């Protein structure tokens, strides 16, 4: 047993070392941009997994938390000149509180009803922000230019700092997800997924643990949102609050393998790379050919790889033992 964990640690360390060196080898800005986006969506996918993969709450409204993270830090910076690092935490807290506020009344919803409720929630948030003058309504917010430094969470000369910050965020998300999945809470969540009523009868406080999962997920997703705002330096409801982002997050988790800690990371590596490069090659004419390819890809994945790449690999190795 200990040798297996030792091997795993060594393997993990090697992958991490590779990821640290990788941007030094891939020097093209576009390549680095794709890697940063990959980490960002991997983080959102890992966060989604806590709700969807473990507890069976298929959320299609993650973009609300993402957007709130982006808007909170940007609004605080613009209006009160508060550091984005503080905004990062504030956004996470606000997203978690909102998640609790919406998650509590939804605690009896299952399956499709939960999925539709999450879409409804995400769309309400989008519509409100689209009409809310204080946060720029449909025009959005432009993050002011500041001196390049870690304290300002802003870098102009190179994408490398963004890369390493996002990598650190992703590691944090993976660590949280790993901790949850091996703790009592992880078992409770899986029990809820397998049988909501049975878990309740066996003494699992279903409402509370579902809420915990939603809140942790919201906090991590909001962190990714703040990162996006500081990275792109411009946000509006159409770029950080649309349903398509929620769907992308679900797909990342599903393609990699829901219910596994590293699945979403693998999923993001495949899906984001594919979609960014297909957009660069096919999408420049604005004909939507890249979106047609994307739709086809989703359909094919659900038909032929419903357990995800990483999920399939894990079940293969486990069968081999």
């Amino acid at each position, binding site marked *: 047993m200990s040798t297996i964990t030792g091997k795993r640690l060594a393997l993990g360390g090697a992958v991490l070392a590779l990821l640290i060196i990788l941007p030094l080898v891939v020097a093209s800005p576009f390549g680095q941009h794709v890697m940063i986006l990959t980490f960002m969506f991997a983080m959102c996918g890992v966060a989604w997994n806590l709700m969807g993969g473990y507890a069976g709450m298929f959320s299609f409204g993650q973009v609300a938390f993402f957007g709130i993270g982006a808007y909170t830090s940007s609004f605080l910076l613009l209006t009160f000149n508060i550091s984005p690092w503080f905004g990062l935490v504030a956004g996470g807290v606000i997203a978690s509180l909102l998640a609790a506020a919406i998650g509590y009344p939804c605690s009896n919803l299952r399956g499709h009803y939960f999925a*539709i409720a999450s879409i409804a929630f995400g769309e309400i948030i989008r519509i409100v922000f689209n009409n809310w003058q204080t946060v720029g309504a449909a025009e959005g917010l432009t993050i002011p230019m500041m001196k390049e430094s870690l304290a300002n969470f802003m870098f102009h000369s190179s994408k490398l700092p963004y890369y390493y910050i996002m990598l650190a965020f992703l590691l944090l998300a993976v660590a949280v997800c790993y901790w949850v999945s091996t703790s009592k809470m992880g078992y409770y969540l899986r029990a809820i997924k397998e049988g909501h009523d049975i878990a309740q009868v066996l003494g699992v406080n279903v409402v509370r643990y579902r809420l915990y999962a939603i809140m942790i997920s919201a906090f991590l997703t909001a962190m990714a949102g703040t990162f996006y705002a500081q990275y792109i330096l411009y946000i509006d409801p159409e770029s950080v609050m649309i349903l398509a982002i929620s769907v992308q997050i679900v797909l990342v988790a599903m393609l990699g393998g829901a219910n596994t800690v590293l699945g979403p990371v693998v999923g993001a590596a495949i899906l984001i790379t594919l979609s960014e490069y297909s957009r660069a090659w096919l999408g420049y004419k604005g004909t939507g*050919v890249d*979106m*047609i390819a994307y739709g086809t890809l989703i359909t094919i994945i659900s038909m032929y790889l*419903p357990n995800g790449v990483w999920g399939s690999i894990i079940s293969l190795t486990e069968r081999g033992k």
Partner: protein
Amino acid sequence: MEQLVQQLVNGLLIGLVYSLLAIGLTLIWGVMNVLNFAHGEFLMIGMFMSYWLYALAGVDPLFSIPVNAVALFLLGMFIYRYIISKVMQGPALAQLVVTFGISIFIANFAALIWTPNFRSIEHTLLSGTWDISGIKLSIPKFVTSIGSVVTSCGVFWFLRNTRTGKAILAVEMDREAALIMGINTDRINSLSFGIGSALVGVAGALLATHYYIYPFVGGTFGLTCFCIVALGGFGSIEGAFIAGILVGVVQTLGGYIFNPAYKLAIVFAMYLITVWIRPQGLRGW
């Protein structure tokens, strides 16, 4: 006051169309527990078919109803047979996501071949408005609603009075029991998907008489329909009918009283509040 009644009438008119769309969606949901996210895109296809029949052959949208119904029935069966049925044995998440893929594909494909421009049918058999003591009643909208109600009633009748219809209801109630009774559940699945899509085809032809036609028209209709179906309750045809009218009226009145920009948000909020109080929807069990 007159304005309020006017809005009430408008809400009722659009609500009856919602009912027809939602009945198609809930039939599919109830029978095979699949949420068809491409429902709105099927509607868009129906509208475009009416448009092209009009633009190329001069066929009035009203006469394209049967053509649309048959074409979308076949399209629905095709998509069930070659995509949905393959996913139904898989995990629940894949069943949810697959129709998303189909909807993205259809909408963008339509935008590619027909351009994303807005179109409309200019001269139909129906035009003008009736003025009933100050309340304006647009004739195409009125006929659309009547057509929707007639079609909805037709579906009720079909489900209650024909052998196939009763078989669909039986599968909806208990799939295993229906299978034991000798009902070919796979055939019923495929039929329900076809019928659900055909209803959208009818609605598409009716809406084409007065609504803007563009590749992404399905998005808003689709999302609204999900709320209606869930509001009405799992697979409940009556529930979908009532919820459709309710959503139409609340949306129009809400938009009039508060702010038209929040129309959709009001529908979603109504859904959230309803499922909070009654997690199984209005007529679900």
